């Protein structure tokens, strides 16, 4: 009898939700932004997305084959990384940019640190910053050949003091990276993740609110609703707040820590936008990632009944 029976420890039932299911939900949630980007910028951007995603999967597979590790490409996390990276690329970037970015994201940022869950920096963002530094001209070229969606991004125009149309930005009728332009598409996906309980509003909410306050205080336009809305809708802020700041692996695990992290990202992004030049989301989140161990250390939760009093 004994060898027939499984005598592992309690609990003897497990929830049906697995890592893979969570990753696939994130992929589905990124679809509105992806589809919208492809629809706007044309079929070439679809090829760029596909190449980047496939490169990410292949890199992980090759790494695991070379180092004789368990094959983990089935868990969907490489797809998420590839997709997020692709959504952060200019629509007409050459395909090799996607390949280099994906290899860097998976090989250097993720696998060298031990694979899923061990990396301290969001792989897609790490790769984007690497590309921005290495190939600045390509990464900031938003010419697409389609007139409405070409040329200077709303963020660049904002920084230059030009007028922008917030409605167009919310709908996504502007230039920008493949996945960042439409606030609506991003928010639809984010709502799905929130409804499924995969992410919650702690980080994105704190991020957006503290960013808005920062812009109000230091943006030079006071608490001007239209200007703040434009700043919020501009650049990668929405995509970053909902899909990258919420990355499980690289955000603090404690509840209070998450609130703090959101505020930190808001302030950093605001500072990059106001005092730096242009986009600050990627750098802000990466700096935030680096602060996570510290944040977790100062926000250890209080155990149930800790310091309880006897009567």
């Amino acid at each position, binding site marked *: *009898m*004994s060898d027939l*029976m*499984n*005598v*592992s*420890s*309690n*609990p*003897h*039932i*497990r*929830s*049906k*939700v*697995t*890592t893979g*299911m*969570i990753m696939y939900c994130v992929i589905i949630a990124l679809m509105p932004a992806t589809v919208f980007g492809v629809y706007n910028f044309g079929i070439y951007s679809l090829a760029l997305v596909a190449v980047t995603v496939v490169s990410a999967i292949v890199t992980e597979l090759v790494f695991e084959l070379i180092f004789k590790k368990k094959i*983990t490409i089935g*868990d969907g*996390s490489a797809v998420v990384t590839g997709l997020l990276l692709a959504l952060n690329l200019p629509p007409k970037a050459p395909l090799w940019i996607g390949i280099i970015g994906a290899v860097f994201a998976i090989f250097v940022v993720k696998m060298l640190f*031990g*694979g*899923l*869950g*061990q990396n301290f920096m969001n792989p897609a963002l790490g790769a984007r910053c690497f590309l921005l530094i290495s190939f600045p001209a390509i990464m900031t070229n938003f010419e697409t050949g389609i007139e409405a969606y070409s040329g200077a991004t709303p963020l660049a125009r904002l920084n230059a003091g030009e007028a922008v149309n917030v409605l167009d930005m919310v709908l996504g009728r502007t230039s920008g990276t493949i996945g960042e332009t439409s606030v609506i598409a991003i928010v639809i996906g984010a709502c799905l993740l929130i409804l499924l309980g995969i992410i919650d509003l702690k980080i994105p909410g704190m991020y957006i609110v503290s960013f808005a306050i920062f812009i109000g205080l230091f943006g030079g336009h006071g608490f001007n609703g239209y200007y703040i809305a434009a700043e919020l809708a501009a650049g990668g802020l929405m995509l970053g707040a909902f899909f990258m700041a919420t990355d*499980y*692996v*690289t*955000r603090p*695990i*404690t*509840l209070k820590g998450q609130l703090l992290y959101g505020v930190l990202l808001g302030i950093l992004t605001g500072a990059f936008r106001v005092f730096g030049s242009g986009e600050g989301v990627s750098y802000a989140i990466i700096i935030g990632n680096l602060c996570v161990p510290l944040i977790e250390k100062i926000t*250890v*939760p*209080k*155990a*149930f*009944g*800790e*310091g*309880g009093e*006897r*009567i």
Partner: protein
Amino acid sequence: MSKFTFTGGIHPFDGKSLSKDKPIVDILPKDELVYPLSQHIGAPAKAVVAVGETVKRGQMIAEAGGFVSAPIYASVSGTVTGIAPHRIVTGDMVESIIIKNDHEYIEVEYDPADPDELSKEEIIARIQKGGVVGMGGAGFPTHVKLSPKKPETIDYVIANCAECEPYLTSDYRRMVEEPEKLVEGLKIILRLFDNARGILAVEDNKPDVIDKLKKLTKDESRILVKALKTKYPQGSERQLIYATTKRAINSSMLPADAGCVVDNVDTIVAIYNAVKNGIPLMERIVTITGDCIKNPVNFRVHIGQSYRELIEEAGGFRTQPAKIVSGGPMMGFALFDLDVPTTKTASACLCLSEDEVSEAKSTNCINCGKCLEVCPGRVMPRKLMDLAVKGDLEGFEKLGGMECCECGCCSYICPAKRQLTQSIKSARKIVLANRRKAK
């Protein structure tokens, strides 16, 4: 309805519908019954019968081995055929008395009493003599629990009627069929604590029970019924105290430190039987269930019957189970062997097939934070597991590892299927053992 609850917790598939509507069935034991001398927390009982001796049902066969201990009674009449180590549910070998059933059920004379006439000391003495222990799983001798240092500071006696473990329905059936005994038992406990009120704490997935208990207690000024939110582990002692009184105690405190005494349904009924009828603890309700059991059912078993007998009485297996568990699926023990006896703390026998047992392999932690969210101990299971695996017991204690109640919520929810509860449990065991050694 106002909801009483705690922070954290999970909502697993509850599986109660399998056996919820099956009335309690009395079953008679087969030829051999086994009584482990250690089926409670504290010193093992000491055998007071010899091999070859004939015993009656209700006769004490082992006396308490100290103050924190409890006597054991024969649940059948027959002959003692052995006193030897026998395997029990945890897999350990424990010294046990073996009795051959003569199927006559000749009983000793009991000595009933009117609880209202008894003094507090007499009530406690009768509970102690009756061998009553916490029947929810821990098996702590009840007379010890009911003798706190300052009885006058106890202001709540909480009847744990939550039965929050999935699949279990024994307490539910008891409350549907014999709620009077529960209420009478609670009244007996209240006799011990002059300043206390009684709370019947029931999860709100049992509205019929709540109605019934409310009706039964409408003239009892000292007893109230509280509906708790249905959530696991609502019936865990510390969570239950918090849900009903908003008092939070930590792992090194006793309920009495917060002015509370908690007992579960079966224990309170056993108290009633011992005090009122003078009948010692010899029987209990056990749920036999799971997707592999042909006829899921609730049995009134004679303590000492083997699990194999119970499964046979329930019609055997429908399909071959992958795992057989004594107790609930969240905190029960997986059985090595079916030839182990039921004891005072056996609440259920659960036979689960492969897909319910979830054989999934552990993968890397993705830091999703779900384990923190559900942990009723409000600790960080993911970090505790890392420390436990590394063997850093100091760090483990510092991060509140000892506040874990081993409820299993973290392992249940983890999408990476990591063995959180298991590793935290092992580390706690080592810490406790070290503490004992240091003393």
